[in-house]
């Protein structure tokens, strides 16, 4: 029974995501839309499951919601701060620097989320991982000290992602 479920639904969360996406694309929640969405949601994960050998261990949805709210709020604040820097500071007065962030999180999903969050928050862009994946390279547009940027990212985002994914 369990192997049958695995064969039909290799990634249940992906199926759910595809159904929701299909309803949003067609902009309706009519039964017909839902049925077609379910067909797509079953067929696409089955067809592509060869490329997704492992499944993530699952995540804590409540903490994920809190995390998303924090990130959206930070994007708003950082946008205003960076717009002000771009308009008022001269190029030479900007203290742009590299920041190396040693990572405590090990799962690929968590590291991807962290790198994406860093890039979406204006003022910092994640540039590269170290060859063994223990350190994330981040470029900061205007930072007083790389240590402060590193500590803030570790405290604010990485700690929460560790709780969500690991």
């Amino acid at each position: 029974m369990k192997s049958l479920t695995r064969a039909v639904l290799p990634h249940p969360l992906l199926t759910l995501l595809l159904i929701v996406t299909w309803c949003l694309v067609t902009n309706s929640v009519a039964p017909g839309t839902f049925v077609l969405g379910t067909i797509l949601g079953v067929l696409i994960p089955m067809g592509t499951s060869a490329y997704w050998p492992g499944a993530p261990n699952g995540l804590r949805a409540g903490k994920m919601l809190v995390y998303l709210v924090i990130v959206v709020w930070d994007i708003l604040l950082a946008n205003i701060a960076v717009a002000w820097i771009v308009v008022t500071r001269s190029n030479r007065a900007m203290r742009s620097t590299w920041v190396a962030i040693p990572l405590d999180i090990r799962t690929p999903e968590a590291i991807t989320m962290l790198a994406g969050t860093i890039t979406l928050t204006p003022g910092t862009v994640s540039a590269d991982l170290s060859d063994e994946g223990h350190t994330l390279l981040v470029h900061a547009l205007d930072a007083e000290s790389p240590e402060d940027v590193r500590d803030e990212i570790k405290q604010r985002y990485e700690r929460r992602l560790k709780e969500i994914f690991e």
Partner: protein
Amino acid sequence: MTLDLVLDIAMAASLVIGALFTLVGSFGLLKLDDAMKRLHAPTKASTLGVGALLLGSSLAAFGRGEPSLQEVLILAFLFVTAPISAHFICKVNLHRRSCDTPPTPAKDQTWATLDTAGDETR
């Protein structure tokens, strides 16, 4: 004040905010001088700039009485894909050494892009 008026004002405000941040993003792209710094400008335009424009579009649809959530989908796709293209531009910069050399990572040998040891065998 009627609901329509409030909606119109909110819609106009989000359009102006979106346009303003997109303008600052383009201005930054022109003004900043090195490749890594210039990368910061488009991330700003694509988050709050496009986000506010989409909010305006969503409010307009709501005002017409045909509420639509497709804007949420656009924003989700944008937020998933924008960091990836930014990441690749970073990697090209690092690879071509068109930016300052980053500090060596503490635990590992080097950065993935600069790790060219295996490339010589080709």
